[in-house]
């Protein structure tokens, strides 16, 4: 039968003009691999649900994108992740929000959809649920990359400088 799959890697991350040729190639390679993963699942009779989870798990593990490993940092300097999934056949859905220790949030969202009576779990409760379902848990430091830490520190430095300039008494 006929199948198809589309992916996105975020919005406004970095315009093409600001990316080096090498960086563009890295992104394209990762997107290509993600498409090949999804294509392979669907070609061998896998479900759209399996394809979506396989593709997003791969993108979450790739530090180039703002999801899973390589996600941006909060004001407190940690990562907080969200994910959701919806199945068109059943209109069942699952989501998790504000988690800090689930390696692949999309897999947790899938578990919420498939193995709970709920639609969305958040924070510590979502982590407890994921742990109880045997998902891989990691320390928050797993998600942090050098690039994200540098961006965060630069932002904080600018904020501090702005606060100094804005001090009118």
């Amino acid at each position, binding site marked *: *039968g*006929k*199948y*198809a*799959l*589309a*992916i*996105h*890697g*975020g*919005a*406004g991350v970095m*315009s*093409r003009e600001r990316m080096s040729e090498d960086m563009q190639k890295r992104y*394209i390679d990762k*997107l*290509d691999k*993600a*498409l*090949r993963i*999804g294509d392979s699942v*669907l070609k061998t*009779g*896998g*479900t*759209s*649900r399996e*394809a*979506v*989870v396989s*593709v*997003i798990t791969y993108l*979450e593990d790739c530090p180039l994108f*703002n999801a*899973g490993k390589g*996600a*941006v*940092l*909060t004001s407190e300097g940690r*990562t*907080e*992740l*969200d*994910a*959701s*999934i*919806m*199945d*068109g056949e059943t209109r069942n*859905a699952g*989501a*998790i*929000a504000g988690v800090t220790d689930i390696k692949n949030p*999309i897999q947790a*969202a899938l578990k919420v959809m498939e193995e709970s009576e709920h639609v*969305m779990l958040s*924070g510590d409760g979502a982590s407890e649920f994921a742990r109880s379902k045997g998902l891989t848990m990691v320390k928050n430091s797993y998600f942090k990359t050098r690039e994200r830490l540098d*961006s*965060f520190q630069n*932002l904080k430095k600018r904020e501090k400088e702005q606060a100094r300039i804005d001090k009118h008494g």
Partner: protein
Amino acid sequence: TVGCVALDSDGNICAGTSTGGMMNKKFGRIGDSPIIGAGTWADNQTCAVSCTGHGEYFIRLTVARDIAAHMEYKNQILRDAGNAVLEKLTLAGGTGGFIAIDKSGNIIMPFNTSGMFRGYVKSDGEKEIAIFR
């Protein structure tokens, strides 16, 4: 944010979205990505959608569900529904975009901001990957 929408050979569609949210966010801010109807939606009768962009706008406009609603209640095809909702988003001042697929395998990937990473593949071998300005 990353997202994926798919149609399988049984004719079922699915959508998923995953994100780290906004850089420097405070107060446990949650965007549209985990909110069903805002950042993610799927219904075999209409379409599957995954969004990316300024989450507060996608939540207020229930962007993902709105695309499906345009198809459901106005009998619009996916492309027209997507264009109508992107226009609403733009007029409201929201930035971002979405990917969507319908039960026939039609794909749309509209957006109104820079730095968009997109790709799709179909069973007939058609494939495209792009980084939009």
